């Protein structure tokens, strides 16, 4: 693409969601220009992790699209170079028989999700604490390097990517930027946690911290998390929720999460939260006690009040589509989001019921 003329679609945001939109739109034969005020993956995509999970989703519309996205990621893993996609599986561990029963009941309701009950979790993860009650193994769960994934999706899309361009407002048929007005047939708002201000949709930040250890020999093989994680994800409480989530990476470091707080865009490191994350990690993996933390970072998950992403046309502004509000699952849900947006813009039928994700579902509250 030469960047000349009016592109069919302008995508705002070069995070993993915007990149996936560009990819599927281009594949549908449309010309695409992607704009970002920073570089590729400079937003939440560069401040989170790369789990592609079905295990943590309760039955409902999000699970439905997560399963579809899981398949799309597998295909992308074969098509794209260097995105570090690993089908490693997820292990959810429980601390009591009561929890184990609750997890079993939860899993039995997840249609389409493969789950194997595990009695000795150390068969899967030899370094787990010996006193855990049990768990459930989810072979469909995967991991990807989200920053590289966004970059490779953009490369493969062939879209025109304009970095260092800030969009100041969206109007029908055009976006106003600090580098001039850019006309477009359609506009996709994939500005992540900042999509709310730009597109007048209720997307808010939910802060999370991640601890990173020095490189280790393989201590943690799968993505491992405590059963309490699902409750924390689904929680509506504004105050701090933490629940241990641990995974190794290709580079050898171990990533430790997870925390959720609604504190606006407060960027300060909170030592009490870091302490809770460390405590959760050594509780599950005592072997990590003597492992050194070398780094910690934070990111802001783009969340909505019903914890579902906003995907689809905005009835108020002709030609504007939203693809935002994926909270802690934007990496996992990026391909299906891009696919659904492309289907909508090209007028192709979608085989997913989009109504739970409609932007206007919040309008009554406005």
């Amino acid at each position, binding site marked *: 693409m030469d960047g000349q003329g009016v592109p069919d679609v302008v995508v705002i945001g070069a995070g993993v969601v915007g990149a996936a939109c560009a990819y599927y739109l281009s594949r549908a034969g449309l010309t695409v220009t992607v704009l970002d005020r*920073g570089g590729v993956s*400079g937003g939440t995509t560069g401040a989170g992790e790369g789990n592609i999970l079905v295990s943590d989703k309760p039955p409902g519309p999000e699970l439905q699209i997560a399963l579809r996205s899981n398949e799309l990621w597998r295909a992308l893993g074969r098509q794209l170079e260097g995105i570090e996609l690993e089908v490693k599986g997820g292990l959810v561990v429980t601390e009591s028989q009561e929890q184990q029963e609750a997890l079993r009941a939860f899993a039995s309701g997840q249609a389409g999700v493969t789950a194997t009950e595990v009695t000795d979790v150390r068969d899967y993860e030899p370094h787990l604490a010996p006193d855990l009650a049990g768990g459930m193994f989810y072979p469909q769960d995967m991991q990807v390097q989200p920053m590289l994934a966004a970059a490779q999706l953009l490369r493969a899309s062939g879209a025109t*990517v304009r*970095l260092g361009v800030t969009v100041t407002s969206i109007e029908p048929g055009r976006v106003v930027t600090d580098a001039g007005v850019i006309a477009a047939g359609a506009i996709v708002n994939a500005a992540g946690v900042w999509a709310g201000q730009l597109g007048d949709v209720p997307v808010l930040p939910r802060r999370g911290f991640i601890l990173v250890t020095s490189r280790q020999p393989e201590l943690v093989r799968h993505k491992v998390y405590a059963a309490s994680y699902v409750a924390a994800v689904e929680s509506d409480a504004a105050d701090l929720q933490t629940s241990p989530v641990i995974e190794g990476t290709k580079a050898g470091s171990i990533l430790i999460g997870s925390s959720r707080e609604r504190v606006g865009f407060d960027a300060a490191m909170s030592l009490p939260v870091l302490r809770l994350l460390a405590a959760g990690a050594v509780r599950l993996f005592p072997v990590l006690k003597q492992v*050194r933390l070398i780094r910690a970072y934070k990111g802001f998950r783009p969340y909505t009040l019903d914890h579902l992403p906003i995907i689809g046309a905005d009835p108020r502004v002709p030609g504007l589509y939203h693809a935002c509000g994926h909270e802690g699952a934007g990496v996992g849900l990026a391909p299906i989001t891009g696919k659904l947006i492309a289907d909508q813009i090209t007028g192709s039928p979608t085989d997913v019921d989009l109504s739970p994700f409609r932007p206007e579902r919040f309008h009554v509250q406005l």
Partner: protein
Amino acid sequence: MRYDVVVIGAGPAGLAAATTAARFGRSVALLDAATRPGGQFWRHRAADTGAGHRDWATFAALRDQLSGVDYRPGSRVWFVEPGFTVHLEGGERFAGARLVLATGAYDRSFPFPGWDLPGVVTAGAAQALLKGQGVPIGKRVVVAGSGPFLLPVAAGLARAGVRVPAVIEAASPLGYLRGVPPLGKVAEAAAYLAQLARHRIPYRTRRVVSAAHGDGRVTAVTVSGPGGQRVIECDALAIGYGFTPQVELAIAAGCETRLDGDGSLVVQVEDGQSTSVPGVYAAGEVTGVGGAELSLVEGRLAGLAATGQPLPLALLRRRSALRRFAAVLARVHRTPPWAGRCDEQTVLCRCEGVTVDAVNRSVRQLGVVDGRGAKLMTRVGMGWCQGRVCGAAACQLVAAGAGREVSRDDLLAFGTRPIAQPVTLAELAE
């Protein structure tokens, strides 16, 4: 434990700040990772009596005044919380109503083929080894890089009986004299040059070490300059392109930073060394590289300001004069652009094994526009040293690739280390 003032760093700046605050009756804690006071400038051995050190009398006086200070050697600070609570490795905490950050600087490096060979060390490391343990880094040592610091390093090695075949300086420092400098400083440089002459050490300007050679250990270096290339045999290379201030604790405390004349990220301070965070002061190289005397002056100012004393005009004037001279040096020794002439296959980030080429490609192909992007896409600066060694060079590459100068944000991406020292998860979990 709660103190009126907690000072981090016991180099010239921190020693001056702590002893000054104590003189006005304040309770002061002085924390430093090293086992002895003095920082880099007065790094010494237990039995040292000052031979070969400069201004030792000043140090001895400061050391005597430490009796009025709760001085804690061997204290590594890994976290600073608002308010202020300072966390040491091992679990100890120090609370202070005021905080003085005097964390100094470390060597700035620019990679070249062979820079990871044993025997290739930073100029500061060679100096630290000599001063701290009395051990010269080799028998035949090339000293290279840029900046006035190369002179004392070469002179010190020569005094210790080491053969220094050449001092290789990238800039042409005769420009010093054009910048209205305080006389003492020029005299100091002249004295070092005289020492080099006495030891018959050639001082070669506008030249760089472009490669180090050797099998298992450096045995020679290639020097490139206007007259072409030349190979010099040696068993060690001490190389440094100035210093990078240690700003991570200041950033963690929320202090505003700025880009200094030498291209480093430094803490922004006002006259009394106050930072943008009320109650936090910064003194010495952390506010801009300028030598030990400037660090001392700033430390005194910080000690006075942190105890609410008036700031003597003479001290403020001295600070300005020394800062002006530092600015001249920074201009003269401004590192020649390295990004355009580095070898693509050289490993830039040794912790994570990232090559120059990988960073260049991330700019060309992966949508990297800044320092942070390079980290995210290539892992440069993500390893054990957290970009302390490769940060300056990585920022230059990215900026050159994007066709602009290195920015404050580029450097912030590498200088932001909320966890200032690696800490075990067990300790953090407590």
